[in-house]
């Protein structure tokens, strides 16, 4: 396999990772919460898209807004009613709380959706450009992932809510004094985090089979992307995702696919020790 092919595979995978992790990164950066629910949100998004497609014939592209809205509502509600109450408690408290919620969501999904792997097969074929071979659904997934991540970047940069989120991330107390309702911003941020997870789930269910047991795998990817790229910023997640995708693609070629995630985690530990702010992170947000 030549380098261009490996690089392309890596970038296609990396775009998905970026979209998957950007919400997790935002929640960690702004709320200072390690959201153990993130992987299950991704799987939930994928399942919703699958059922919308198989029962109502809704194309995944049109399922995106529906899934996004549902996940946003779920995330907003959870944060507003539960996590906000312990938001200033030590790390372990919020981490354990989201883990408890994850156990509930995971159980609900296994009972209602069963653990069968499901995938939306769009059968779009594949094509070859300059010797690089790509399945079309992967390319669609990559384009969608980059588009969604770019849209989030735009919202964060130029909407009032986006600016308010950035302000809260920089200095919560100053933001509060400027009249920003911090609790509401927290809930919106968590909602956006859940929404991005759900949307990433819709894209992933087109490319890979989804079942409840991959929730942990996706959560692990989000950890790595966040640490590699740096917390709380959209460009950070994009860089982290692409780096992880390319590294995994090359690692699975040279060391075998079962060892690719090991390389990813080693990269995480290495960067944690050498540069915990991430490749494009800003100091002072940790």
């Amino acid at each position, binding site marked *: 396999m030549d380098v261009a092919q490996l690089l392309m595979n890596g970038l296609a995978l990396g775009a998905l990772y970026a979209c998957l992790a950007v919400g997790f990164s935002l929640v960690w950066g702004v709320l200072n919460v390690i959201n153990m629910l993130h992987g299950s949100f991704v799987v939930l998004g994928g399942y919703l898209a699958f059922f919308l497609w198989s029962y109502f014939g809704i194309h995944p592209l049109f399922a995106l807004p529906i899934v996004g809205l549902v996940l946003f509502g779920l995330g907003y509600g959870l944060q507003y009613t*539960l996590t906000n109450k312990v938001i200033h408690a030590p790390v372990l*408290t919020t981490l354990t709380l989201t883990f408890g919620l994850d156990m509930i969501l995971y159980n609900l999904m296994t009972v209602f959706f069963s653990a069968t792997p499901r995938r939306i097969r769009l059968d779009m074929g594949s094509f070859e450009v300059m010797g690089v071979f790509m399945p079309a659904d992967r390319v669609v997934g990559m384009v969608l992932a980059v588009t969604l991540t770019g849209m989030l970047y735009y919202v964060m940069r130029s909407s009032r809510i986006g600016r308010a989120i950035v302000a809260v991330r920089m200095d919560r107390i100053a933001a509060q004094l400027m009249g920003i309702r911090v609790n509401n911003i927290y809930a919106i941020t968590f909602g956006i985090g859940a929404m991005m997870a759900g949307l990433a789930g819709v894209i992933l269910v087109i490319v890979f089979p989804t079942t409840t047991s991959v929730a942990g795998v996706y959560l692990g990817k989000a950890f790595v992307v966040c640490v590699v790229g740096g917390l709380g910023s959209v460009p950070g997640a994009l860089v982290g995702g692409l780096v992880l995708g390319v590294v995994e693609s090359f690692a699975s070629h040279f060391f075998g696919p079962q060892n690719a995630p090991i390389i990813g985690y080693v990269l*995480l530990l290495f960067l*944690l020790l050498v540069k915990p702010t991430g490749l494009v992170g800003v100091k002072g947000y940790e």
Partner: protein
Amino acid sequence: MSRFAAILFVVWIIVLATTPLHAENYVVRGAIMIAMFSTLALSWNIIGGFAGYPSLATAAFVGLGSYVGAVSQVHGVPMVIAWLLATAVVGVVAAGIGGLLLRLKGHYFAIGSIVLVELFRLIASSWSSVTGGGNGLNVPLLRWEPDEVAQMFLLVMLGLMVLAFFMNVAIKNHRLGFGLNCIRQNEDAADMVGVDTTKYKVIGFTFSAFLCGTVGAVYASWVGYIDPTESFQIVLTLKVAVMALMGGAGTLLGPVIGASAFVILEEVVWVNFLSWNRAILGVLIVVLIFFLPNGILNLRIFSFLRAKHKGDARREKP
């Protein structure tokens, strides 16, 4: 710790140790699980409770201990030597990893330590020439009567639990405990007044890890079969932290109370709600966070189990 609490601990050990005399094997198995999780929660207490570091590496050390124990037993090392070997290996690995990871704080430390579990699991499943990979390993079983085997493992696990408890007592009354307590309250200030924070944290981390290795190896010998997904579970890591928090992190009796209560609750949930057990345990964790944030032991009705404040002041004078 009050005298009453010490009596309670001794009574609880006796109750657990005598289960084979008056109860069926199912109850004995429960007693072994209680002793095992008490050991793990007490171990976690040293880094998570005394030093306040959110360590989530418990399952990594338990799994590593299981594998070291199982692999050496498969290669003909006698069982008890294999357990000691697992303890030593985990202790050394923890000291090495601690030296690197403990430079991180808060969320970064939590992520770094939880990733260890996944990393070790992946290594265990891909290094199949030694670990058997995804097929797992069969550990040679003891050729004794089943009752005798259960009794032996119960006594071993109880021994580990008592050892972990006395380790907690010793550390709490020692300079190390005082230093870890300073680190929990304000690490920068502790550093400033001359506590060698890095050294204390690494020693604390090693103490909190090595018994996890023993527990892992003993567990592997008890169940006779291990595989990567069962040995390295993130759920286990969080369960142990939840137990310590449930009982009261940083106290001596809290982890024992939390582990006992959690194991019993989990067993009741398993028996009665098979397909909903995960959700019910999740609800339990959520309820715990909101209604028992400081643990069972810190409830006012249990104040008689806690140390008198005067005694604390005397002991903590430098």
